[in-house]
């Protein structure tokens, strides 16, 4: 599979256009699915901030998502999560000043448990676990380099029993032209 992908990358890669621009964005995230995890916890929603830039091929993004989870019972602690992720994807242009991006991501999902109501093992007050994610991002240019973004994302947290979250996000982003020093830094 890699052998099939690499020639495409080779033909598409363009070192000059990489890091030409960068975008800063913010999203509100709402968890919309229900599975075993949701028998114990419900999400209170979350906020995501990110930095993205064109890569040698496609687009890359680094971001942080904060989300809190409330326990349904006193037998489990509340916890909040901080997801640090790295994402790569490809954007397709659509009519009406809009675009669709398909992205894959990996990150670390840090869980900080609330020990105020329940005895929590001190060694487990904070845990980190690997995540793999997929998302589709629909962007609409509302004014010059300002965009309105609608995102549907799937996140798999590799705990022993997996945590699977499907989130709907809504937010805005702004794209800037990269100063030379930033391009030099990235290259």
């Amino acid at each position, binding site marked *: 599979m890699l052998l099939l992908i*690499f020639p495409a990358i*080779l033909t598409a890669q363009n070192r000059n256009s990489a890091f030409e621009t960068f975008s800063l964005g913010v999203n509100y995230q709402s968890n919309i699915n229900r599975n075993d995890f949701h028998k114990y916890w419900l999400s209170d929603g979350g906020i995501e901030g990110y930095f993205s830039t064109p890569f040698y091929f496609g687009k890359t993004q680094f971001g942080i998502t904060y989300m809190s989870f409330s326990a349904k019972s006193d037998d489990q602690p509340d916890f909040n999560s901080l997801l640090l992720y790295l994402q790569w994807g490809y954007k397709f242009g659509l009519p009406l000043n809009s675009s669709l991006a398909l992205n894959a991501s990996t990150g670390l999902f840090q869980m900080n*448990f609330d020990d105020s109501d329940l005895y929590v093992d001190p060694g*487990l007050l904070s845990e980190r676990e690997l995540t793999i994610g997929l998302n589709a991002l629909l962007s609409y240019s509302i004014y010059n380099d300002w965009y309105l973004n609608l995102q549907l994302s799937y996140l798999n947290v590799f*705990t022993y*029993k997996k*945590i699977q979250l499907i989130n709907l996000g809504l937010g805005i982003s702004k794209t800037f032209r990269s100063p030379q020093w930033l391009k030099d830094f990235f290259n």
Partner: protein
Amino acid sequence: MIRFKIVLLLFCVSLSGFAQTGSSISNRQLISSGINRLSDVYTLMNDWDTYTFDGYRWYASANGLSSLQNQNWILMLDGQIIDIGFFNLKNINVLPLTINHVDSVQIINHPKIFSGKFAGDGLINVRTLKQKNGLSVTGRYSAGNETGDPGPYFYTEHYSSNVEENGPNLSASIEYGSDDIWGRLFFYTESFSATDTAMRKRNPQLSWGDFKGRRFSPSLQAVFNALNGTHNLFLGYSTSEIQPFHPRTYTSNDLIFINPAVKDYPVQMIFKHAGINGSFDFSSNSCLNYSLKASSNKLYGTRSESDNFAHLKSNYYSNLEYRNSGQVKFFFGTGFDYTELSASYLSEEKGIGFFKTYGGIEFNLFENVISQTGTEILFTKNKTAFKGYLKSCWQYTSKLWFDLNLAVIQTVPEEKSDLWQWIENGYDVLERLGVDYSFEGGRKRELKFTADLNAGYKLNPSFNLNVGLLYRNFSNYFIEEVIGIYNPDSSVFNSIVITNTNSLGSIAGFSIKINNKIFSSLAQSIDYRFLTSAGGDSSFKNQLETIPAHKLSYAVTFNPFESFSLWANLTFLSPVSWSYFPELEELSGGFYKNNLNERFILDFSVRKWFWDNRLRFNLQFKNILNNELQYHPLGAKFNLSVFFSAEIVFNSIIN
């Protein structure tokens, strides 16, 4: 014809280089693969077989040259011998250096004399990077995380145990480089854990903290040109006793698996090394090489039941070699090696000394055949051991060549630096640990014959094919047979130890390697190896069954820019059987199994460097297929893991 002779000349030059260097893992391969610890280099060495209980301490066997039980392979740093082993553990991570300071890793897979040592069981020579001119500083952070933690489910009926974490590991160096002197002052502090359920279940006597290890490893290296030669001074220290700068406050220790006890013991291990090696050049084709070193390894128990369990091994090594690379290429040398053993429970100190003399010559019997032969005679007390090898390379056409390696090796017990060396010298280590065993008559002089025939075909500059056959024959081979019987009530193993001092057996094998550069930035390699028993007694065959018969590795490297690369490696290991634990599956309720099924291991690494390569990030995923990966039936089961490293490099800040 002239063209052919030029090719032959170039080939002979490269062969001459090969005689010196053997195969090697390049800096680019090390960087692209994103390996995190020195022990991860084994994943790039398809000719070597390895296993681990905990992912940190590995046991290795080179190209069928020894069993996995025998850890007599040699470790060197820039040609300087490093004695990091204790009992049967040779943990390469004890070497006080991190992978970002390694230029390349030379691997000796066929018996030969290398830097004054006869490498009969294989050799790894870690070559360090030469410092840039002026003053430079580097810093590195790395950490890893194995998936499968309980997360919030810890507080539900879906409870599970916590699994391994790796790191944080922090290192820093201050370096200086110039034309005539260069060096590095290096500090490394690392942490590791062996908290997998498979480890803890069979060691109920240990607490959680006993499975957490820390190590602090500083070193100083200085290389200088003087007296018509280059000299390499290396001072190294590594201890599990302390770990400065670490954010957590666990007690610090190391862990050692004592096979005859089928048990892990928390211990402190302290390694010290001071050595210098180099050469004095008499002319452009002749030089005198030398090597001197003193080192000590200390191991002591940290728990009350292993009280009065301190061992100290000191080694003094010297070697002198004359080498001529003129029209007649030859070398000869002599060396002395002295090891002193002492333990807290025996007042007497014991010394083991060897004297050796060796030599070798390169010759051309036929126009397009270049050969090298070498012999070593080792003397100790009333024993001698002879070692000899012949390496011949025949360039059949400009594209096709054949390479034959033959060796006959005698090994006296005194050369084996392992647990039984202590016992043979009157230190009853196993009695201290309450292990019953029989060891009558002592070990004999082992005899090994090895033969390797390789054929290489270079279709074009970007496609190489190498096919090989190997044969090994062992006699008077020492094998410890430890039968471990699992006690379901206590969760510990009771052991029966039988020592076989005259085991015999043969191994035959086949290998095929393909290296192909598809584009300038895209390369792939396929490496297949088959090993099988070609006769022998049951002790020998049981040992061989612990090594996968089939091993296949497929690697792809995509390196479009200096600052960015992708790497993927798929390894297949065929099933292995450890027949030393009767009724293990039944007694442990299916938790432990004698046989490990076939394993598919997919690793992936992405590297991006920033800021003119000053800031370097690497992300490596291990076992992406997320199979429960095991290397030993009693060892940890590894899930998908991720490793991250960040490095900052300021080169030549002051010139």
